[in-house]
């Protein structure tokens, strides 16, 4: 860390302090230094950027920009802050996209939501929001959205007019065998996302994703609810893995409140988090083969998934939207029937896993299709800030459970599951290996809980929840969690004695993964779009939030 501190010698900083032993938190004095600082950081070797997020301080009339730089090799990261004025005409800052390619879409989003103008950005067009919000910047404090909601039909007409204008422009653009296909929002293989594919016959020339069809503005919704009620909004970031996102938010709130939860609650969080991961990965391997027209593995995987959903239903009463983790611990006490159902589920997995492997993973037709497409190299992982299974399949060792252990992961014996070569098939292999590793983590957690309950260290009826006050002090915290799709990061800002968050920024992994879609698919054929898209393990819920 000392080396990194020395990098900031030539620049004026308001403060520089160590945060949580892996992060260096620095606030710059003036925003014109940003590009030079970024160049210095990149030359030092920190090449990834997680997200770019403004916080709106309306009383002081400034935006505070936050930049989160990460190093995937040495795990020493930098959190950079700088202030810019709030007025539209002066709300400008240099764009760091020419240096960090992974910041491209994050800056577009900050522009569409808040109105920050990034100088020298390659393409600062409207993003995620629907056409009736163009130019209105809905996330600024003081935007009167109730008045905006009154005329629904007029808003819808604006949206449809914009869509037709774009279609007509597309039709006039090309002639002959080249055309623009709309891989539209109701395509059977894509879910609610639109890809504008320029094709020449069957060969792809360019792809431009158009996202925002599942935009629920969760970051704004959380400001209307209180700290406990936000769980309802945040567990629905992506329904497939429901529990890990609640862990991320709960940790941020506990850090600001200054409370420590019990060991029992930490081990329960590990248990619930790993069940969420298995449930999501089973859906992911089914979806991969679905894109190639084979439904059999989807059916078998969903059958296995039902056993794990039984465990969640026994614990919390709901199969998918469990609301089982809240700030202070886990929500419900534990009874032993839940652990018995978990044993049944693990036994079912052991019984069927060889079939999965021999029939599908070794399938020669799948290998011939998936071994040479969608190859991501190690440099691209660093440049575009990829994470999760996409990064591990290319050989980069990054896993938040091992880099920055949270909950009870420091007591668990696990390892990085990596593959070389980074093609679509390698990502499928990593998914399989992660399921096997999660099963072993579940066995360790379950035996630890059983031993603890038997020897009276844990009290399953009382130890599960610690009281968190309803009004939190002023502060900010970041919390990172290894979600099933990658690294989920939340940045929470609170004001003194407020009952709801002031600003919550969610950085979702699928956002960066969709950014590289064009880079991977240029020059391939139409048949490869669902294959590469399915192997990147994208979920539209966390893409749009």
């Amino acid at each position, binding site marked *: 860390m000392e080396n990194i501190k020395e990098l900031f010698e030539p620049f004026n900083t308001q403060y520089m302090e160590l945060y949580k032993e892996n992060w260096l938190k620095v606030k710059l004095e003036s925003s014109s230094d940003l590009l030079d600082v970024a160049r210095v950081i990149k030359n030092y070797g920190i090449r990834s950027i997680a997200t770019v997020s403004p916080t709106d301080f309306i009383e002081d009339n400034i935006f505070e920009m936050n930049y989160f730089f990460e190093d995937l090799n040495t795990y020493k990261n930098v959190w950079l802050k700088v202030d810019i004025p709030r007025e539209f005409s002066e709300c400008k800052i240099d764009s760091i996209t020419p240096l960090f390619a992974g910041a491209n879409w994050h800056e577009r989003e900050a522009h569409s939501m808040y109105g920050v103008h990034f100088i020298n950005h390659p393409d600062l067009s409207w993003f995620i*929001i*629907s*056409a*009736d919000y163009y130019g209105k910047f*809905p996330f600024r404090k003081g935007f009167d*959205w109730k008045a*905006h*909601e009154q005329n*629904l*039909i007029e*808003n*819808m*007409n604006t*949206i*449809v*007019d914009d*869509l037709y204008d774009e279609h007509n422009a597309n039709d006039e653009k090309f002639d002959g065998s080249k055309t623009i296909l709309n891989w*539209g*929002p*109701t395509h*059977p293989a894509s*879910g*609610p996302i639109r890809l504008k594919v320029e094709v020449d016959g069957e060969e792809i020339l360019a792809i431009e994703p158009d996202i*925002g*069809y*599942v*935009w*629920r*503005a*969760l970051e*704004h*919704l959380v400001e*209307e*609810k209180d700290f406990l009620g936000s769980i*309802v*909004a945040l567990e*629905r970031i992506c*329904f*497939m893995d429901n529990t890990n996102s609640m862990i991320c938010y709960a940790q941020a709130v506990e850090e600001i409140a200054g409370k420590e939860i019990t060991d029992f609650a930490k081990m329960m969080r590990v248990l619930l988090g790993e069940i969420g991961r298995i449930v999501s990965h089973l*859906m992911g391997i089914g979806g991969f083969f679905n894109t190639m027209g084979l439904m059999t593995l989807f*059916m*078998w995987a*969903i*059958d296995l*998934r*039902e056993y794990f959903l039984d465990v969640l239903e026994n614990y919390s009463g709901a*199969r*998918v*939207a469990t609301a089982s983790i809240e700030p202070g611990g886990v929500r419900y006490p534990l009874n032993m029937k839940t652990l018995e159902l978990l044993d049944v589920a693990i036994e079912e997995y052991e019984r069927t896993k060889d079939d999965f492997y021999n029939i599908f993973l070794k399938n020669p037709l799948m290998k011939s299709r998936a071994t040479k497409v969608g190859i991501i190299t190690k440099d691209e992982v660093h440049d575009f800030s990829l994470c999760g299974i996409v990064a591990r399949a290319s050989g980069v060792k990054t896993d938040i459970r091992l880099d920055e252990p949270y909950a009870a992961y420091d007591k668990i014996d696990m390892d990085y599951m990596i593959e070389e070569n980074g093609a679509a098939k390698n990502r499928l292999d990593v998914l399989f290996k992660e399921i096997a590793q999660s099963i072993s983590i579940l066995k360790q957690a379950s035996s630890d809980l059983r031993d603890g309950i038997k020897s009276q260290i844990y009290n399953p009826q009382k130890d599960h929840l610690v009281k968190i006050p309803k009004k939190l002090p002023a502060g900010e915290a970041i919390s990172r969690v290894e979600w099933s799709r990658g690294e989920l990061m939340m940045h929470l800002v609170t004001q003194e004695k407020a009952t709801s968050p002031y600003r919550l920024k969610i950085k979702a992994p699928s956002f960066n993964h969709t950014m590289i879609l064009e880079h991977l698919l240029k020059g391939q054929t139409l048949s490869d779009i669902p294959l590469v898209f399915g192997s990147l393990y994208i979920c539209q*819920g966390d893409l749009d939030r």
Partner: protein
Amino acid sequence: MLKILDFFDYAKSQSAWMVHFCSGCCSLEMAAAMGPRYDWERYGYLVTPTPRQADVIFITGLVSKKILPALLRTYAQMPEPSYVAAMGACAYDGGPYNDSVAVIKNVTEILPADVFIAGCPPVPEAIITGLDEIKGKIERGEPSAASHGGLWKQMKF
């Protein structure tokens, strides 16, 4: 003569095909209803990729403003008689996203539904029970609620 028409209505009710339109989180439970444990193909339901061959469209959960024209267009492309099933709390009044800036709160005023399936998300048994209601409606020969009402006929899409 009427008996023959009754037979055709009964045949239409026993083989309802649905189009795969996924606009929100509830589509995950729809996928679980296709699986081996809750197998809905026993009742004759089938998922088709194009709306031209479908009878029922599901409003799976939340509908954001950006995807509403696509939903209306898909519904308009379905051949008559076509029915709408609204799934989840979001299709009723916005559900957990009631305070959100970007979700339509009253989708069923725009595209009226024939059956509401409650839950967030509804369990697969609830989905199949809700589809039974639509089967009863088709068997009695009643027209769909969207054909005589709703704001969708005044909107552009």
